[in-house]
């Protein structure tokens, strides 16, 4: 019977892993953090507890609990529900404090989030800064995401619109050209990943290249005409 508990533990861990994967896109990094392991362990343990309750008290969830596999599936997936539960919501000033298991699990999730965010931001900054160092924001702000999105098959229309809105907001900001270019790289790579961004930028530097002192021919023409008719 011990093997059933081991399987239940693993199912609980897998359902927790699915949640971590939905939050972070890099599986290797998830296992690099102690908080992630603790989170997986807590989920696995909760699944064992749920399995024990179902078996010990013969809890009936329909035909699914008639078989051991059904019990394991319910226990493994319901551990997420138990761990997300809170029996009270205490208001403290402007904050709502959740009382229950959700409060404990959220500590580990938040910690994993923060550690991953810090680590990822350092690694990503180095790479994006290198990819985007010679990219002119104004030349790339439409073409770069368009080429990248054209290569992707699963980006929803809503995600594309959000990306477009973020780029427009970025172009409005009174920040340096370099900061805009790096942020453009961050926005695009959030959707497409760094590898595709790097590939598209390096293959199209003739379009995106920032040539210091040289204005785009049309911009130059427009400026001349504005001076002529001023």
């Amino acid at each position, binding site marked *: 019977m011990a093997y059933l508990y081991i399987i239940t533990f693993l199912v609980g861990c897998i359902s927790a892993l699915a949640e971590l994967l939905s939050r972070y896109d890099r599986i290797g990094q998830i296992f690099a953090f102690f908080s992630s392991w603790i989170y997986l362990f807590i989920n696995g343990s909760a699944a064992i507890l749920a399995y024990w309750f179902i078996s010990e008290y013969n809890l009936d969830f329909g035909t699914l609990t008639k078989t051991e596999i059904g019990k394991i599936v319910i226990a493994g997936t319901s551990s997420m529900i138990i761990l997300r539960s809170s029996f009270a919501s205490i208001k403290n000033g402007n904050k709502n404090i959740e009382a229950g298991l959700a409060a404990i699990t959220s500590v580990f999730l938040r910690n994993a989030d923060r550690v991953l965010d810090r680590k990822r931001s350092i690694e990503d900054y180095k790479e994006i800064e290198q990819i985007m160092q010679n990219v002119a924001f104004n030349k790339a702000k439409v073409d770069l*995401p368009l080429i990248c999105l054209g290569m992707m098959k699963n980006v929803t229309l809503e995600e594309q619109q959000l990306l477009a809105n973020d780029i427009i907001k970025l172009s409005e900001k009174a920040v340096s050209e370099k900061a805009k270019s790096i942020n453009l790289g961050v926005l695009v790579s959030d959707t497409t990943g760094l590898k595709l961004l790097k590939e598209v930028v390096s293959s199209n530097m003739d379009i995106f290249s920032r040539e210091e002192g040289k204005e785009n021919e049309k911009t130059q023409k427009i400026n001349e005409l504005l001076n002529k008719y001023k």
Partner: protein
Amino acid sequence: MEKKSSNISGFIDGYKAGNLSLMSNNFYIKKNDISFHIDNILNNLKDINSNEIKNFDSEIRSLKSSILYGLDSFDSWQMFGESLNSILDSYKKLNKKTQDLLFPDIKKVIYHFIDLAKKSEEPKLIEIAIEVGENL
């Protein structure tokens, strides 16, 4: 298995809509500026009694109505640019004296149109603005 194909229309639509809302204030300002100078041109034309200006006058009036009833999208500004271009062709056919009289306002209309095109960063509108600017 369902075959998925890439579709970039979400980005294009989102970008166009965002850019349009960003430009709406500029559209309003430029519409007013251009309208002011078109009114000046029409007032100046009133004082001229010549058959020569009849066509030009009606073209300017139709340009004025396009300002009153539109110019809230990039497409309408592109059409405005094309009309302005054809008006400049008619302007060049007027006699020297009439041309000189109208020139300050014509110049300002062109200026505001080019300025708007520059701010919009819309390639097609910029292309038309360059054509308009080089027409005179």
